């Protein structure tokens, strides 16, 4: 399906502004799902809901319809703090190749190590 609905001859595309008013509707929640016991919760998306209880119910309806879920977390999106600038933030790891075990050459005769 061509979801980029084409612009008909004689029509102009609508101006899109991200400077517009932010949502006055229900707050945004991030949804984390544990697919089965023994695995971590991983982020699966977000949704709007008036409170945590409804957020969990909405998350169930939106993200678990195939029944592949053992547990859900919801977190207000405003409570997520993210790292900035990936180019410098993770520099400290760049010059330490010796942290990876393959850095060290060990003769085969030594066996499992």
């Amino acid at each position, binding site marked *: 399906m061509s979801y980029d609905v*084409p612009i008909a001859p004689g029509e102009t595309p609508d101006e899109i502004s991200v400077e517009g008013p932010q949502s006055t509707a229900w707050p945004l929640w991030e949804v984390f799902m544990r697919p089965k016991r023994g695995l971590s919760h991983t982020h699966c998306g977000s949704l709007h809901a008036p409170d945590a209880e409804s957020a969990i119910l909405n998350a169930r309806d939106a993200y678990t319809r195939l029944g592949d879920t053992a547990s859900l977390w919801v977190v207000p999106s405003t409570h997520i703090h993210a790292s900035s600038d990936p180019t410098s933030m993770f520099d400290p790891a760049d010059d330490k190749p010796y942290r990876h075990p393959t850095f060290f050459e060990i003769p085969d005769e030594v066996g499992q190590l």
Partner: protein
Amino acid sequence: MAVEHQVQFDRTIEADEKIEPRDWMPDGYRSTLIRQIAQHAHSEVIGMQPEANWITRAPTLLRKAILIAKVQDEAGHGLYLYSATETLGISRDELQEMLHSGRQKYSSIFNYPTLSWADIGAIGWLVDGAAIVNQIMLQGTSYGPYSRAMVRICKEESFHARQGYAILMALAKGTDEQKAMLQDAIDRWWWPSLMMFGPHDSDSTHTEQSMEWKIKRISNDDLRQMYVDQTVPQAHYLGCSVPDPDLHFDEESGHWNFGAIDWDEFWTVVKGNGPMNRERINHKTKVWDDGAWVREAAVAYAEKQASRSTKIA
């Protein structure tokens, strides 16, 4: 600084890595994505209407339960996609408003009516089938949240296509009247389904830029050909034909060659003059307005619970 950002962006695209919400991106990339993902979301939401039309008249309880589940999936797909659009910095309110006011559109396929039960099968097989071809391609799109939404959606679309084809297989084994109903549905949905892939590459103004940004990975015409090649034999398996006198298999290329698409009809529907354009939007805005009390009640309840827990604390 801006140049550095552009270089970083270009390098990410070139390396086939994903752009993520907090990354710098060109304004055109952002607005193209907002437009495309929002219209994709609107399509899922409006797409519930033609199918919901037959929930009360499904021929068996099982078919009814399946159709309800499918329509619920469409609502879910709309939600994944609205969330993905919001990561680009636009609010849900604004997206909603743009759909209701007609400032943004949705796939024209949903401006056709569902006249018989066979249409529900034809939608699952032909319309969702076309959606799958497009959405598999879009799993490889360069914007992370859109790509992840596509992966999730594709997992659920096979159910839709197969339930549709199963409806049609039942009709194909039915009475002459049922067989006629089946053929009639294919006759009406075939061309609009081919139009779903959009204008020819030569007339598609955005395709080139979208391909460069890797928002789209395969062109409209190539996707359409893939779709025709997989779908024509499925029509024949049902004992049906597709309404195209020029359709023939080209031994040399291994493809089904098909006749000319009626682009006048296509543009008429895109411009808002299809059989169901006005009804779809009127219904959508009515349901939104009628549901206001539910949203208000949910907020009032949340506020009351919150004020109680503060008092206890």
